[in-house]
């Protein structure tokens, strides 16, 4: 096994893992402030892809405008889901919210099947992203380079929002103690809605990049990346944004390396993610970067 082969696999792993990470950020943000696993997160990503698809093929928007609009609309969809589904059960026991999340997930998937049909649709990939370059013997698709750059930029923006803005300060306070934050005069519902918007926008961006890789979409496409992103979030320490990104990268690299080194095990690719989840939950439930959770 030579170096460039290994380097190639690691690069592939990073480009896949970056997307897991970006999607995982949404999981982790919502979990961090609501202690809710938003199982619909992968499906929100799917919705984002369809927004982008219809923008291009039905409304003939230029691809960049369609992608941008899709991200914005998905953020709005995230807010609507929060207001319509999660807000009414906010004071109910946590299990009710969890079941609601599973319900929203099924709803979106089946709504997708009805509205968009179950047949996969070819997704658009701009010409300039389809080139393959060779750097030091490693072949990289331009799309993957740009995806990774964009992912890092988005991660930077999200970290900036959390740590350096007033909204982020309120998010951190809600994460620590929602009741006290309310009593300090913060409109908690508004901040939570914004959190859903940010997480959903990240999911849409990740989903669109995901869709361009394959390049096709279908209404159930969110399930696997959604689950993988969940594993990534737990791996990194759920509630921790940087951790989610690192968890995603690690998961991507492990997955790709497994397939590359043991092609006979390729069928176990998805199982690996869940084995990691189980191991983490057993031995280090707070994840790699997680601190002790409050309460």
């Amino acid at each position, binding site marked *: 096994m030579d170096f460039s082969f290994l380097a190639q696999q690691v690069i592939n792993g990073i480009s896949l893992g970056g997307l897991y990470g970006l999607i995982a950020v949404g999981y982790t943000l919502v979990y961090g402030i609501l202690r809710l696993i938003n199982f619909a997160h992968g499906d929100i990503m799917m919705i984002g892809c369809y927004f982008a698809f219809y923008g291009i093929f039905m409304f003939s928007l230029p691809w960049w405008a369609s992608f941008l609009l899709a991200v914005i609309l998905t953020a709005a969809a995230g807010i609507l889901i929060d207001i319509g589904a999660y807000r009414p059960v906010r004071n109910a026991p946590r299990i009710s919210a969890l079941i609601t999340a599973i319900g929203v997930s099924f709803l979106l998937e089946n709504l997708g099947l009805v509205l968009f049909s179950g047949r996969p649709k070819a997704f658009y990939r701009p010409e300039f992203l389809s080139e393959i370059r060779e750097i030091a013997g490693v072949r990289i698709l331009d799309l993957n380079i740009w995806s990774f750059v964009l992912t890092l930029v988005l991660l930077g*923006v999200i970290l*900036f*929002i959390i740590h350096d*803005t*007033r*909204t*982020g*300060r*309120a998010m*951190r*306070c809600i994460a*620590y*103690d929602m*009741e*006290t*934050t*309310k*009593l*300090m*005069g*913060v*409109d*908690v519902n508004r901040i939570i809605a*914004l959190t859903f918007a940010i997480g959903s926008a990240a999911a849409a961006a990740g989903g669109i990049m995901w869709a361009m890789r394959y390049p096709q979409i279908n209404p159930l496409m969110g399930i696997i990346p959604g689950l993988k992103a969940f594993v990534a979030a737990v791996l990194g320490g759920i509630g921790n944004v940087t951790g989610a990104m690192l968890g995603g990268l690690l998961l991507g690299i492990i997955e790709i390396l497994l397939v590359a080194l043991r092609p006979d095990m390729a069928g176990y690719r998805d199982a690996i993610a869940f084995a990691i989840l189980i191991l983490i939950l057993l031995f280090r439930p707070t994840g790699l970067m997680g601190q002790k959770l409050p309460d």
Partner: protein
Amino acid sequence: MTELFRAENLTMQFGGLTAVSGFDLSLCRGEIVGLIGPNGAGKTTVFNMIAGYYTPSEGKILFEGKVLNGKKAHEITKLGIARTFQNIRLFPDLKVIENIMLAYHCRIRSSFFGAVFHFPLYRREEEEMMRKAMLLLNEVGLAESAEEQSSSLPYGKQRKLEIARALGTGPKLLLLDEPAAGMNPSETQELLDLILRLKEDFGLTILLIEHDMKFVMRICERIKVLDYGITIAEGTPLEIQKDPKVIEAYLGEVRTC
């Protein structure tokens, strides 16, 4: 003196337990009123109802003539009622000054996008918030600790920070839940002076829960005594000290032997 606050027949039931029943209270602007009673009497529950944290089972709360029932906690804060907590509830990971800046949230206008792109309005508001927060820290003597994490403050200072944070919301009525708990006599004395000074500087009306009787008797103009959720006495510190029902509530066991 004009009335600022009125509670009528406030009652709070938790399942079969009536924690507070038929609680009436009227506060005039500028008053300091004490709420005392043995452990579990329902004092904190009264605060929780006023702050909108609990929904009263019965009764009415009026603040500056407006009915508070049904309003959300953050709306009540915005109307001008702020509180501190019996067990300190600061945000330990935030800096001291950030704890106070959070309290200004309810008084600002700029939007989320303003915050992300640091629009001029956002920046102006943020600077203004910072300046006001520093002034508040100065008032309570915590200015040098502004950049420290709030969890690193000693206990007495955390109590003061909680008061400063409550003031950050711009209250007219301040609810203090056992502010002197766990303080030594000299700290208690300092706190007493601080509360009186803040009351003057900020034009506050104060409702205060406290177990330290000397503290209550010295600071409060009027005292209400709760026992098992029922108001058993009301009056000036002198009257309360002599009231046989109060003595019994506090010293019940002593009397029976």
